[in-house]
């Protein structure tokens, strides 16, 4: 349970209430994470919470945090130079390698883009090994997209299809309006060669999965990332149970075969 000290070396404001931190180890470092894993980030004296890794290289960790409470406020507001505690990386990953040779469909709602960014980057990095790569991302309003510069960059590329949509349009938005399920519904999906990666609020993930199922995608080809209260990250505190799962250990990434019955039960 002992955190490893990391220093914030850069802080980028993403939206009104979220920021991306680049962390570098001060001494010892945690193992290199896989795409989809998360860390427990500790703000000294305030608390520790689970935060996905939104990018990582060479010992550097990138986390994108939304301010929703005391701990996430302290973390997302941590200025360059601040020292945070890091434990991890924990949990299952997106298993991007198993999608080699497939069409990759990435569906992100709001902050869900953070844990999915490593999927996009991974696929683009070894672009030739994947077939079609599509990113469908939604946000409540145009200003609430994470990584806006990067999104624009990707949108400009020919080797990835980027579909953005917002719930509430704002000034300067001439793109589609509506939930991610709409652009997703318009997508041509070839069930036998597609793997989908979905992350966002639970209802959004369920609706998106349903759209994909309707298109004939088998549930074991749909992966999503779950969220439950987490205190330890190592399967000993019990808080993250979701039926048979310890989400910190057996998740956060699970396929829809596993997730469907759990998400459809009330108050599980």
């Amino acid at each position, binding site marked *: 349970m002992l955190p490893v000290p990391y220093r914030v070396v850069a802080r980028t404001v993403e939206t009104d209430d979220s920021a991306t931190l680049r962390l570098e180890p001060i001494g010892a470092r945690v193992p290199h994470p896989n795409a989809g894993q998360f860390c427990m980030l500790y703000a000294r*004296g*305030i*608390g520790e919470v689970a935060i996905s890794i939104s990018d990582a290289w060479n010992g550097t960790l990138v986390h994108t945090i939304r301010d929703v*409470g*005391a701990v996430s*406020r*302290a973390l997302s507001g941590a200025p360059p130079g601040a020292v945070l505690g890091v434990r991890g990386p924990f949990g299952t990953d997106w298993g991007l390698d198993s999608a080699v040779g497939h069409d990759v469909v990435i569906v992100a709602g709001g902050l869900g883009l953070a844990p999915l960014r490593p999927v996009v980057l991974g696929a683009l990095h070894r672009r030739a090994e994947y077939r079609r790569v599509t990113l469908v991302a939604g946000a409540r309003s145009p200003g609430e997209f994470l990584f806006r510069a990067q999104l624009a960059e990707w949108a400009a590329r020919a080797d990835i299809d980027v579909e953005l949509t917002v719930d509430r349009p704002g000034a300067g938005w001439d793109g589609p309006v509506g939930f991610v399920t709409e652009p997703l519904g318009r997508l041509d999906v070839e069930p036998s060669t597609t793997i989908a990666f979905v992350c966002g609020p639970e209802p959004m993930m369920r609706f998106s999965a349903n759209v994909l199922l309707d298109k004939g995608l088998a549930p074991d080809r749909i992966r999503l990332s779950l969220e439950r209260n987490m205190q330890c990250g190592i399967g000993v505190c019990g808080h993250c149970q979701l039926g048979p799962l310890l989400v910190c250990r057996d998740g956060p990434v699970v396929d829809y075969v596993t997730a469907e019955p759990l998400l459809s039960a009330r108050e599980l």
Partner: protein
Amino acid sequence: MPSLAVWKFASCDGCQLTLLDCEDELLTLAGQVTIAHFLEASSQVLPGPYDVSLVEGSITTPADAERIRQVREQSRVLVTIGACATAGGIQALRNFADVEQFRSVVYARPEYIETLATSTPIAAHVPVDFELRGCPIDKRQLLEVISAFLAGRKPDIPDTSVCTECKRRGLTCVMVADGTPCLGPVTHAGCGALCPAVARGCYGCFGPMTGANLPALTGQLRRLGMDDTAVGRVFATFNVTAFREADNEPPH
């Protein structure tokens, strides 16, 4: 330095005294905050606004109803301390009684009584940032709330049963091992299970925890031999209004 103010409304003073009872921490605290308004302890009164106000006591007069509004206006963070402030206190028994009768017992001059028909919690008058339970509040919890506000974190004040504290202390349950009626299973934790530690049943100083299943406990109290009057009485003390409310809420 952040400023701290302490205010008193209808109460016994015990919750404010809890602050002075922090013998080991009082001078440290005074080094971390400016005690800007604390009549019980200081004749120095600094003008507001105040960073944190601790409010003790319930509202029982129109003048106090006005005064709490002023306190709220001057306070960045307002924390209510104790059952009087969070639930109206034992003096809220008047809310359920025939005030006429009360008046005849104590008062010779009925013309002053009209305004005193109820005792209400602070939150019924102004927005409250945090409610610290207890009759009286617990010293460690008070320090935790102040430390948390100073550090900008969420106070670690679990909204759970007294039983969880009782068991963590390794005490033997008085209800199971002795048949002593105990309100622990429905009472908000915080005291550290003081009563079971002296072989008595909890009598509910901290009021109901969220989602307390009062009907289930009431059934058990009856099985342990309490009649309706007795059951009525145990819930009609310092947190009478809160227990009544919890009883009216269907258990989740």
